[in-house]
């Protein structure tokens, strides 16, 4: 990895952290309702970013065959470009639920390697949830994305496809 790449990587991480603290400062950190509002705000930011990114990334790829093809693209190409690694495990029940497991999720790697700060994890994952949801929605899949962490820095994203 050359210096340029390392700088790019740090830039995104630092910006992401600042965005979170900015959103939380603006919202004030008291109460569950306020917390929920901040999460939604972060998620919506991710949504718009995901929409733009997927438009860029899919410009030179062949047309996708089906839903699974799209999910594979998100796990491989999309994840590699944004988080510098692939998703470690993709599972599905073939009925519209996908679980994306990342054993070393980049946005929370710096924070902790265990259960410390676990209660802060959701706000560091909201943006990425939005990223996935925005990307999928631009590709024509409506979904609900939730994240789950039991031990950092591993994390699971659950994608529930909304059938029309």
């Amino acid at each position, binding site marked *: 990895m050359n210096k340029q790449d390392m700088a790019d990587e740090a830039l995104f991480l630092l910006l992401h952290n600042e965005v979170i603290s900015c959103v939380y400062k603006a919202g004030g950190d008291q109460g569950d309702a306020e917390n929920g509002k901040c999460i939604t705000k972060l998620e919506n930011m991710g949504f*718009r970013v995901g*929409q*733009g990114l*997927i*438009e*860029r990334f*899919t*410009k030179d*790829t*062949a*047309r*996708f*065959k*089906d839903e699974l093809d799209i999910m594979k693209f998100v796990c491989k190409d999309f994840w590699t470009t944004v988080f510098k690694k692939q998703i470690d495990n993709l599972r599905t029940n073939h009925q519209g639920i996908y679980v994306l497991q990342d054993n070393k999720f980049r946005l929370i790697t710096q924070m902790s390697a265990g259960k410390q700060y676990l209660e802060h994890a959701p706000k560091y994952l909201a943006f990425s949830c939005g990223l996935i949801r925005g990307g999928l929605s*631009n*590709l*024509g899949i409506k979904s609900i994305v939730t994240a789950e962490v039991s031990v950092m820095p591993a994390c699971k994203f659950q994608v529930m496809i909304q059938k029309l």
Partner: protein
Amino acid sequence: MAVCVAVIAKENYPLYIRSTPTENQLKFHYTVHTSLDVVDEKISAMGKAVMDQRELYLGLLYPTEDYKVYGYVTNSKVKFVMVVDSSNTSLRDNEIRSMFRKLHNSYTDVMCNPFYNPGDPIQSRAFDNTVTSMMVPAC
């Protein structure tokens, strides 16, 4: 060179449509509208994977007496339709393809513009210029 260029959203409503001002615009709107059925047909035929040609460029949709209609669909299911004068026989398939690529690049830039709301009609001047460069100069 094209006489009409249109961008159609995922939900099949127009995001952008421009034709040469010298001719009846409504006619082109109608032509583009009609072509959407052919686009749909082409996409669903590709799903059958008889011919595993999964290119974004759809090729010639249909010819009419005066015009040829070409189509292109992005992965986000946004459709580009271009109407070309039939008399212009010098225009090769590859040129059309590269025009669509240019259009797609420009559309991507619009999409990544923070002042653009996905789903709104396109009002970007940069996009306008790209389209102008592909249209027949109005005499």
